[in-house]
């Protein structure tokens, strides 16, 4: 469905609505959505129930405070029409008095106490009235509400506004005071730091001083103890040496004495052991005598064996003789 109407906002943000003229669609019923193909069934405007027809003077205009609801309006119109129809039908169906009999006529008669003249001519009086020409409406008076509250007035005099010179004084004082105080604090801190440093330096010097003294004394002490040790060692050495020397002397004397009688005894013992010898005699004794003895031994052995042999022979012979003798016995 092409858009024939458009709602827009123009650049200023205002609401713009534009639409092309289009024929009104024919709706099949109230509230029912339009059928799909609407462009072929444009209804005849003469037979459109939505179009107001006939005398519009009799149509009641909508009350000012009318509901904008078209349903309401239509309902009310329906009601009105129905009422009219109902009234008409009631009028028709109302029973009336029967017709007059022959020769009689129905006439209206007054039956009240006080009779009244009925005439068609109504007594009327003509009275004319003419309003005055309209005056211009006077201007409505200004609405001045009743006065309430207090009236207070104020006026700024000459010198009451801000005066820089007087105002700035305390501010300046505070600023300058604070700055100076801060700087004093900082300076004091720095001084304190400097004082601490000097104290540290003085302490260091003193410490160095005392340290040097301590070291000197330590060194002195060490030297002295070393010296003492050395001297004591030396002394011990000396003592030891002396003792050694004394021992040596004693030993020497003793050995001297011991050795004095040694020589003759040595000689005698040597001689007794045979270390001094006559070589010929020795030779004779070592070589000749054993040989001699051996020879003597040999010859004696031979003699011995010879004697034993002889003994054996004699024995054998004697034995034989004895046996012979026994045999011959």
């Amino acid at each position, binding site marked *: 469905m092409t858009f024939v109407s458009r709602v827009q906002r123009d650049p200023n943000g205002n609401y713009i609505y534009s639409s092309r003229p289009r024929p009104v669609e024919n709706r099949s019923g109230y509230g029912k959505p339009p059928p799909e193909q609407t462009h072929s069934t444009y209804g005849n405007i003469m037979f459109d129930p939505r179009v107001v027809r006939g005398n519009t003077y009799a149509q009641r205009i909508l009350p000012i405070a009318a509901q904008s609801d078209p349903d309401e309006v239509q309902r009310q119109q329906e009601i009105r029409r129905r009422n009219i129809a109902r009234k008409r039908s009631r009028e028709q169906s109302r029973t009336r008095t029967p017709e007059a009999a022959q020769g009689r006529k129905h006439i209206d008669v007054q039956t009240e106490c006080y009779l009244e003249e009925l005439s068609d001519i109504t007594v009327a009086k003509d009275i004319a009235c003419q309003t005055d020409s309209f005056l211009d409406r006077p201007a409505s008076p200004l609405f001045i509400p009743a006065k309430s509250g207090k009236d207070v007035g104020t006026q700024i005099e000459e010198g009451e506004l801000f005066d820089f010179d007087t105002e700035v004084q305390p501010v300046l004082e505070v600023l300058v005071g604070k700055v100076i105080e801060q700087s004093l604090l900082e300076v004091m801190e720095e001084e304190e730091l400097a004082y601490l440093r000097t104290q540290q330096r003085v302490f260091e010097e003193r410490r160095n001083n005392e340290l*040097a003294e301590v070291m000197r004394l330590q060194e002195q002490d060490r030297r002295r103890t070393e010296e003492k040790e050395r001297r004591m060692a030396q002394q011990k050495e000396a003592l030891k040496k002396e003792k050694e020397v004394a021992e040596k002397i004693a030993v020497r004397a003793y050995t001297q004495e011991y050795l004095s009688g040694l020589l003759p005894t040595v000689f005698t013992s040597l001689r007794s052991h045979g270390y001094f010898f006559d070589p010929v005699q020795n030779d004779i004794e070592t070589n000749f005598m054993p040989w001699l003895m051996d020879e003597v031994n040999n010859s004696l052995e031979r003699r011995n064996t010879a004697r034993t042999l002889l003994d054996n022979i004699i024995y054998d012979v004697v034995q034989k003789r004895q046996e012979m003798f026994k045999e011959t016995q």
Partner: protein
Amino acid sequence: MAGPPADWTRAPVAFGRRAVPQLFGELMRPEAEVRLRALASLCGLMRDPERVYQAVRGGFLEQLKVLFVDEDPSVRTKTCELLHLMTSHSISRQALLSSSLLHPLALLMDDPSSSCRRSLLLVLNSLALLPEGAEALLTLVPKLMQKLRQVMEEEVEVEEVLLLSTITSCSRLDALPALACDAVLLVGGRLSHLSPDIRREASAALMALSACEEGRRRVCEEALLPAVVELLQDGDVAVQANAAGVLMYTGVITTGKQRCLDLNVIPMLLDLVTRDQEQQEERSRKALIMFSLRALTTLAEAPLGRRLLLEQLPLLVRRSEAAEEDLDIRRAAQTAVRVITWTP
């Protein structure tokens, strides 16, 4: 109503208690500009101890860990500056030490931006002044020494001064880690530098190192004593005092005594001790005089030294009896006199 903020380099600060949390919240934003401005405002706020307290108690320090590895060098620098401001209060020092921030902080030492390195070294320096801080930094000492070597080659004076003073503070607590990294040699090379700051820091470092037995031995071995004696004539009182301190410590061991006597140091020390100055200079020279007296005491233990000093005894006696003297100086002078006149 409030137009653009008056100082565009700083973020606007909320009122009262909300200021610190809000600024720390802004630090989490991805834009570097915002973070930089928030850091600038925080730097301004952290001069107030109340704010520092609030920041530390709220546990916001952990958020700074993210900022250490930020790409923008100015953000890193500002973070270090902020930490430096906060280390002036003990509560933040404690928090810093107990948190795990030290390690990522130490990694920043190799940062390419020099201002960031400088701020970081300032933070470490102020931390090292505290004993617990020095203890925590002892683990970092090898890294510091390495950095010192690097910086000495590059001749960046500011960083060198800061590094030396940090190492001095650490070595006052325990000199062994620094000694293990050859500190004596490194520092001794700087004793004759042109800049008085470096000379002062180097001599202070040497004094802290020679307080330890090992250090003394090393000082004698490396033959640094001539340079030290030269520093006694320096113009800066602090340098002179430090040099006298080194002599005082080195003279305790026998080789030190020998070397010092060889260098004929006694007249110089006596001269320093007996010079008459006005009262306020006395105050600054007090350390110098004390150390010189102690050095003389150690030298008096050697027979040669004693002989020399016996001749000068009246000077020292006068010094020890003077009524307007400082108590420490008087005591030191009395000790010296006692040692000189000691007989077995």
